[in-house]
């Protein structure tokens, strides 16, 4: 209460400060008059009395200021200081613009990266209580994380006591007839409780009901908000409408809310209940699903993991054939969704932080130089009665003005940078990172920028304040004053430059390592020529192709027609394109070998006869398939070199046989050929043992077509889609792309490329700032030492010697900065070790190269002032004394 009255009084004074001032003036004038009268009464002459009164009264302005300080908010002084700060900066626009720009670069880069970090890592997922959600998968010794089979899911859900709810989902491709031909639309099949488990309620219509996921239940589906807007123009009457997808009818029952996203299936438009009708979903050893679960209250991820693992072990004992070696893996859902980008974002944030540091150090040393040249001004103000607090306040205000300017421009830069970065993300990548959709300068980013700006302002005001408190007035007032304080500044400035150079080295080496890693990744040995290859995915709806023979016939027609196109050398199909994933694995058991119950996991591909010739792979032994291969026993299979080496070391694999873990007679395969290794897996993964079965033997209704042409492969893509449609209008196509585009656009290449280019850009700016920093300190040092140089030259020093003298000074700084930087670079490389591909964290060529580049640039930057020093005219320099 007392504080409130206090505050109110202060406010009154603030609003009536003119009156406050005039009243005080009048009061003091009265005081002086009274004193004067007293002196006259004591017998002084009128003139003398007035001076005596004035003298005894003291500095009226000071008293007034002090009174105002007691009563007011200091606002007046601050407004004055603010105006003065602006005037100072306007008077020296070069300094102001440089400082604000450098700071804006630092804050801009930092804020933009922070916005990504915020969107991906800080902002909670748009589900109810997302921290209690987990992704549940099986785990397998050979492949690590593995999908879960439907029967296992049913058992897990029934037996566990740790999840309040557990549901499954799996991707699906629905073909939809549109005016522009049949399209494959990505969708998701989910168990009916899926959205309730996530805690998402539909924006329109209703959620799935229990039982809608039982075989035979009528088809229902929900739309994402985006699909509702795009495909149904947001009409409310879509609810109850029936849509034909892949030849089956689905009734639209609901629309998901606008903010809904699900990164694990980000591009899905249609969500339908998962009815376990497919062959795979009836088998315990066919793993096609992922599960999400909501933990019961009080249950931790760790105890859930323990419980699920023990359930998995029970199932392992009960179903040894299908469940041997299958464990359970529980991961927080947020980790599952953003785990792949987290290390990259943290690296970028680290890079941005270093850039920010270097920018701040740069501006701080600019300010130091300026405060040095303002020494006299400060001394004069001090002598005229400005209190140290008031002088410090001036520096704080100037720093705040600079920081505010840097912050404002920085947010502009951040906005532009975010747009550019978002533009670089391909549509496919965006689908996997839907949380980036709403990326913008939000309250979090603003707060981040403001905090950074405040910290910077603190640094900028502390340095000159500390600096000036070390010097005393008299020295500042002395005209040629350049004693110990100049040296002090030089020490402080020199330290700052060493920090700058070291930081630049860390960023440069990071950029070098990431760049080298990207190069290695893009030039990794694929085992096939990726140029002149066109690819497109095709899916044939079950309803239109009920018989397997129809599928085979479709593929035959398609490859024949494509083969006939001008320029096409060869065409083939596969169920999964090379250089994409180590997915679609199979368990095998070798015939005639002792079996200890351990599955051998191999990558399995079903390919047409033209597949190998299209890829131009090398046959190491045996033969390729022919188109006349029929369902014979034993079935024929081709294996890769890794397979042959691993399972038949020192033997000829051709002619050997293997089958499923039970060695059921119809599963027996005979190896007819060994092909040289090529990458089926993502670029950064090792080649696994792989088997290739003829497409004809085991046909699936979705596959990818691959075409090698001698002409422009890009121009071929629309042609391929057209031919598919011509052969059967109900066949859908998607993802037309050249193999080069696929490799360049793959997630691993994208992550590497964006890291390398961003850190590279940061490093380039850091290098520039570092060069400017060393130029500044050497130039300043030269300007302070002009007279000394003059004396040296007058005493007979040669120009070369003077130049060397200055360069030696710079060399010490560069040496210290480089050494510190290399140590820092090695330390910084350790956390990014896991993100590097084919490069060690302490890659010597990179480190040496980086050190040479930095030292060279820094040396060149110091050469300019060194040469200026050498051209000093001794007579002039001495006369200036």
């Amino acid at each position, binding site marked *: 209460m007392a504080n409130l009255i*206090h505050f109110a009084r202060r406010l009154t004074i603030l609003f009536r400060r003119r009156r406050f001032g005039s009243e005080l003036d009048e009061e003091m004038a009265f005081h002086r*008059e009274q004193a004067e009268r007293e002196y006259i009464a004591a017998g002084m002459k009128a003139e003398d009395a007035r001076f005596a009164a004035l003298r*005894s009264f003291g500095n009226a302005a000071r*008293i007034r200021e002090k009174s105002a300080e007691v*009563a007011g908010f200091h606002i007046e002084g601050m407004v004055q200081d603010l105006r003065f700060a602006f005037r100072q900066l306007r008077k020296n626009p070069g300094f102001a613009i440089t400082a604000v720009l450098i700071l804006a670069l630092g804050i801009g880069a930092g804020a933009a990266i922070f916005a990504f970090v915020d969107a991906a890592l800080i902002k909670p997922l748009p589900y109810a209580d997302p921290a209690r959600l987990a992704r549940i998968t099986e785990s397998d010794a050979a492949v690590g994380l593995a999908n879960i089979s439907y029967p296992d899911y049913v058992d897990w859900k029934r037996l566990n006591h740790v999840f309040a709810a557990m549901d499954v989902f799996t991707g699906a491709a629905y073909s939809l007839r549109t005016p522009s031909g049949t399209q494959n639309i990505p969708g998701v099949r989910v168990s009916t409780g899926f959205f309730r488990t996530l805690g998402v309620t539909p924006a329109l219509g209703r959620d799935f009901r229990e039982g809608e996921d039982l075989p035979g239940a009528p088809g229902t589906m929900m739309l994402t908000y985006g699909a509702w807007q795009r495909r149904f123009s947001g009409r409310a009457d879509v609810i109850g409408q029936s849509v034909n997808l892949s030849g089956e009818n689905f009734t639209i029952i609901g629309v998901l809310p606008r903010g809904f996203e699900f990164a694990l299936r980000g591009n899905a438009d249609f969500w339908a209940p998962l009815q376990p009708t497919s062959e795979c979903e009836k088998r315990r050893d066919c793993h096609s699903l992922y599960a999400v679960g909501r933990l019961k209250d009080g249950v931790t991820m760790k105890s859930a993991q323990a419980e699920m693992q023990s359930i998995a072990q029970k199932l392992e004992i009960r179903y040894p054939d299908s469940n041997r070696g299958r464990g359970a893996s529980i991961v927080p859902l947020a980790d599952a969704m953003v785990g792949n980008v987290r290390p990259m974002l943290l690296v970028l944030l680290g890079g941005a932080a270093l850039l920010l540091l270097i920018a701040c150090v740069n501006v701080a040393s600019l300010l130091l130089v300026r405060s040095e040249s303002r020494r006299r001004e400060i001394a004069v103000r001090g002598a005229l009665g400005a209190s140290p607090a008031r002088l410090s306040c001036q520096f704080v205000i100037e720093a705040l003005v600079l920081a505010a300017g840097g912050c404002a421009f920085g947010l502009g830069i951040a906005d532009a940078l975010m747009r550019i970065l978002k533009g670089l993300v391909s549509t496919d990548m965006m689908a996997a990172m839907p949380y980036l959709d709403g990326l913008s300068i939000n309250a979090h980013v603003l707060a981040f920028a403001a905090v950074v700006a405040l910290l910077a302002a603190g640094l900028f005001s502390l340095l000159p304040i500390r600096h000036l408190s070390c010097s005393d007035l008299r020295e500042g007032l002395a005209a040629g004053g350049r004693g110990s304080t100049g040296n002090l500044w030089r020490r402080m400035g020199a330290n700052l430059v060493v920090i700058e150079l070291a930081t630049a080295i860390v960023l440069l080496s990071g950029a070098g390592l990431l760049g080298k890693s990207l190069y290695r990744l893009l030039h990794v040995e694929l085992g096939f020529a990726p140029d002149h290859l066109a690819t497109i995915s095709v899916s044939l709806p079950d309803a239109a192709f009920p018989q397997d023979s129809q599928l085979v016939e479709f593929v035959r027609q398609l490859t024949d027609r494509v083969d006939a196109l001008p320029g096409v050398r060869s065409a083939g199909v596969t169920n999964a394109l090379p250089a994409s994933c180590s997915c679609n694995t199979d368990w095998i058991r070798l015939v005639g070998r002792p079996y200890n119950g351990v599955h051998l996991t191999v990558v399995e591909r079903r390919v047409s006869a033209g597949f190998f010739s299209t890829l131009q792979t090398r046959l190491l032994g045996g033969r390729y398939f022919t188109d006349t291969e029929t369902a014979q026993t034993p079935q024929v299979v081709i294996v890769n070199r890794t397979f042959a080496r691993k399972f038949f070391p020192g033997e000829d694999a051709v002619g050997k046989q293997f089958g499923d873990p039970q060695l059921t007679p119809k599963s027996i395969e005979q190896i007819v050929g060994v092909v040289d290794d090529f990458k089926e897996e993502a670029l950064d993964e090792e080649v696994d043992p792989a088997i290739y079965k003829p497409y004809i033997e085991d046909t699936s209704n979705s596959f990818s077509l691959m075409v090698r042409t001698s002409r422009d492969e890009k121009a071929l893509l629309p042609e391929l889609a057209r031919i598919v449609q011509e052969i059967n209008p109900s066949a859908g196509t998607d993802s037309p792309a050249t193999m080069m585009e696929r490799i360049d656009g793959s997630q691993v290449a994208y992550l590497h490329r964006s890291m390398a280019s961003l850190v590279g850009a940061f490093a380039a700016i850091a290098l520039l700032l570092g060069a400017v920093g060393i130029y500044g300190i050497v130039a300043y040092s030269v300007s302070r030492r002009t007279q000394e140089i003059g004396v040296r030259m007058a005493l007979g020093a040669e120009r070369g010697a003077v130049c060397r003298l200055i360069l030696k000074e710079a060399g010490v700084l560069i040496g210290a900065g480089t050494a510190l930087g290399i140590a820092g670079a090695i330390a910084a490389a350790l956390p990014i070790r896991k993100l590097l591909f084919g490069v060690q964290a302490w890659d010597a060529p990179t480190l040496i190269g980086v050190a040479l580049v930095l030292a060279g640039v820094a040396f060149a930057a110091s050469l300019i002032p060194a040469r200026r020093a050498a051209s000093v005219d001794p007579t002039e320099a001495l006369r200036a004394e």
Partner: protein
Amino acid sequence: MGKNQPDLLPGTLDMLILKTLTRAPLHGYGIAQSIKRLSDDVLTVEEGSLYPALQRLLLQGWVKAEWKMTDTRRRARYYTLTAAGRKQLGLELSQFEQVIGAIGRVLRDAEA
């Protein structure tokens, strides 16, 4: 300058001003004169301390100010003690006496 006068004990100026105002409302100059006279010219209140101190007391609500005419028909700001100021004065006096008493005891003990 050359005057050999003891400084005011720190923190006592507010108390002296409040005490001076217990008799009658006074203007700033009057307060300074009154303190000087009552202390037989030992204590001189610097104007540089007086006016900021008066602002402080006003802000605390211990005195209030109003413009009045002096005997010589001149406008001056007169300060009056408020009830809160009187209470504060009592508080400061008792504290002051405690301190002075304590110092005295220490000094006597040191002499003995």
